[in-house]
């Protein structure tokens, strides 16, 4: 029911939904980030396993601008192509990979030179809103922002953890072409706690320190987060150690 109402709303508003494979990237504080493109998962599928497999990689910065585009070819199902992400001043964002020829999960790795962490991307979609809807969201967003609110068109629930040694951040990805005001409310052992309203530029990203949503504690605190956005978005969890963003970081997709 909710899904069909949502589909109807999309049709009425003229929203275009484009299937897209995307991954996060992180180069904060000198970290190196690289994708691993491959097509190994169709290795045993006749008709799908004959290379080469071309792909286009588009890297979006935190402000949504495209900072790099690469044309890549994965020669065969046993090959893997590493695509380094260009470091930028902000140091994070998301990257899309065309999947007309690839049928495998792609990896994103983050390294401090000594060791590396990895996760994979998501094959979902990005949404494109027509001008009138962008204007509508801009007006509504400005009206609601002073009250710390947004239009809750999309809602996600996510657990996250915060401690002295094991820290977490949210990498909020705006998968639309409208400014996405995302409200994040944290709950832990009781009534709703701290809330933040984060404005994410079109096709942009923002990092939010989970530790700012909960009182500092020596022990690990588990938080139930509710995220509401006026447009389509997703997030990755960023794990950190005691050096927080100055150390190696991990990334993890969510459901």
């Amino acid at each position, binding site marked *: 029911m909710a899904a069909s109402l949502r589909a109807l709303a999309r049709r009425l508003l003229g929203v275009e939904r484009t299937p897209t494979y995307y991954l996060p990237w992180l180069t904060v504080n000198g970290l190196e980030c690289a994708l691993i493109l491959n097509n190994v998962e169709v290795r045993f599928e006749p008709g799908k396993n004959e290379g080469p497999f071309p792909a286009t990689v588009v890297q979006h910065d935190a402000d949504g601008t495209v900072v790099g585009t690469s044309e890549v070819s994965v020669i065969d199902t046993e090959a893997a192509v590493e695509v380094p992400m260009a470091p930028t001043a902000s140091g994070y964002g998301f990257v899309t990979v065309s999947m007309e020829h690839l*049928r495998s999960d792609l990896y994103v790795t983050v*390294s401090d030179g*000594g060791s590396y962490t*990895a996760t994979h991307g998501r094959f979902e979609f990005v949404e494109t809103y027509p001008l009138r809807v962008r204007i509508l969201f801009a007006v509504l967003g400005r009206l609601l922002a002073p009250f710390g609110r947004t239009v809750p068109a999309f809602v996600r629930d*996510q657990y996250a953890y915060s401690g002295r040694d094991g820290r977490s951040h949210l990498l909020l990805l705006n998968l639309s072409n409208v400014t996405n005001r995302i409200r994040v409310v944290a709950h832990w052992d009781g009534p709703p706690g701290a809330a933040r309203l984060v404005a994410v530029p079109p096709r942009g990203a923002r990092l939010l320190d989970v530790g700012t949503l909960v009182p500092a504690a020596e022990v*690990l605190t588990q938080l139930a987060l509710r995220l509401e956005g006026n447009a389509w978005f997703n997030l990755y969890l960023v794990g950190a150690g005691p050096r927080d963003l100055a150390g190696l970081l991990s990334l993890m997709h969510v459901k």
Partner: protein
Amino acid sequence: MSSNLSALLSATFYEAGDEHRVELVHQQDRTARRQLASLDLAVYDPEGKHLVAVPMDTHQEILDLGALVGSVAGALPRVMVLLDARYDERIFPYRPHHYGFLHHRGSTAPALYYAVNAVLGGVPDRIGATGLTTLETYIFLRRAFAERYSVLLGNPARFSTAEAQVTAYYATGRASQVVALPPKTHVEMELAAEHAGEHLQRVEIKALFRLASYVVGRRAASGELVLFDHLFSYHR
């Protein structure tokens, strides 16, 4: 038990000193909690000895594995934790996947979030996934890091010994290991980071039965965990 319930058996590994939390429901809303009908947690040592079974309160959202199994794990390097859940079928076709948080106390490595291995039920049980989940692979960055790599394998079966072949691939060479895992046993199998002068590129696990399987990366000097990830199935 009602035939309207669907099973999901998940497996993870707990090591002493870890902050290790596992989510029982997708999210904190009331609907999700209601759909988790029951959950049993069982802990096994590497030889498959049953250490403890813990009936769980399904209203809990997150398990603290350290609090639950830390004392029974004792001096063991690692225990396998099986989470045997029954969900109201209304939760499907969306997968009632468990997610975890992992960080060793005092470690300078980053905290890791990960998806807990679903070894039985879940997607295959309800939505006709065609993936061959006993043949899995994982790709590594090709340059050399000061890391040790391995795969953690556990056999959640009750009666069957499972044989697994673990093959590490290098630029031109490969190295295979075969292990037989009696029921509930588990093992960490090292993968040589280098073989005949070539760096590790990929690992593949073949087994007749679905195993609990994770790829692990540890800092060579300290053993700190930096990679704890599931593998990927062929035939998507």
